[in-house]
């Protein structure tokens, strides 16, 4: 495709799409306008019906829980795909100890980095746990908390080095966390059907408004999301890091070029 043809295509697409876009942008509510009707309805319904203070969690796990189930499996599929792609010819072959690419330099770390990581790592993990368990009370939830937990393990990598990190993180546990989290979420959808309720109907007691135990089934779904996200992201980091240290790399040069 020549550049001229591309520009002509771009021009045609712009001519077709711009009027519609301009019309839509013109009809948007003003910046900083009052909350839309949907938001007002949510604000009115959720505290009364579900005893939950964090509306975003209530939408994600209850009112539109089915969407989150789809996203959960989207994440699972994306991470599975990445892992398959990165493992390549290493296949199922996994080790619990660190592998290094021969000739790869070990960069020395300054003591300040080690100290900072040892201090900040546990605190960050604690903060991640806080975000996870307070999903229905304060901003945050399983996804955000899970990513924070995964980042917390990376501080161990930064402070202790790759082999130290691999001593903490076990690949099989990560698989179990990722798959188990998604399974837990799916079971949260199916279990209410056993007692004659609808799919993902919130059948558990709702608890007290603004209390840690509020939201009923949402808490379990939230835990599933946290497990899946934390396991999935850490697995992703592990595969990316492992690839740079592929032990049988330089045996067959030329295969690595792709």
């Amino acid at each position, binding site marked *: 495709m020549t550049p001229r043809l591309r520009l002509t295509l771009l021009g045609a697409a712009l001519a077709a799409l711009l009027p519609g876009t301009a019309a839509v942008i013109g009809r948007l509510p003003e910046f900083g306008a009052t909350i839309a009707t949907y938001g007002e309805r949510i604000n009115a319904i959720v505290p009364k019906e579900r005893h939950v203070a*964090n509306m*975003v969690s209530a939408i994600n796990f209850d009112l539109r829980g089915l969407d989150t189930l789809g996203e959960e499996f989207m994440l699972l599929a994306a991470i599975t795909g990445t892992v398959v792609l990165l493992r390549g010819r290493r296949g199922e072959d996994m080790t619990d100890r660190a592998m290094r*690419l021969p*000739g*790869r330099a070990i960069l020395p770390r300054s003591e300040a980095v080690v100290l900072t990581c040892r201090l900040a790592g546990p605190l960050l993990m604690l903060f991640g746990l806080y*975000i996870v368990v307070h999903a229905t009370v304060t*901003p*945050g*939830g399983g*996804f*955000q908390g899970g*990513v*924070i937990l*995964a*980042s917390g393990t*990376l501080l161990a990598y930064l402070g202790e080095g790759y082999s130290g990190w691999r001593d903490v993180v076990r690949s099989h546990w990560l698989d179990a966390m990722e798959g188990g989290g998604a399974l837990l979420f799916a079971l949260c959808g199916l279990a209410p059907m056993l007692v004659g309720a609808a799919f993902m109907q919130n059948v558990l007691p709702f608890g007290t408004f603004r209390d840690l135990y509020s939201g009923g089934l949402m808490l379990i779904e939230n835990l599933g999301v946290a497990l899946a996200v934390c396991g999935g*992201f850490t697995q*992703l*980091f592990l595969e*990316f*890091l492992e*690839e*740079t240290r592929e032990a049988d790399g*330089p045996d067959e*040069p030329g295969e*690595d*070029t792709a």
Partner: protein
Amino acid sequence: MSVILPLLFLLTAASGTAVVLIRDPARQIFAIAGNGIVLAILFTALQAPDVALSEIAVGAAAVPLLFLVALMAVRAGKVEQASDEGREP
């Protein structure tokens, strides 16, 4: 509040432009992380703490880290094949 929002919009525009203009991949990653932090502050100022938390966890920590590691992997492979790597415009 009236000063903070325009200031944050300017910062967002500046950091976003910086991501595009910086050509060295290693520095670009830090520009992306900076942009993520600015966006997180903007979301907080616009009273969207949930989105801000996601942004700071994913946009300012996870994604730059993945990019950094990927870049490390590319550099590690380059040592052997530095000679036969043709540059195509």
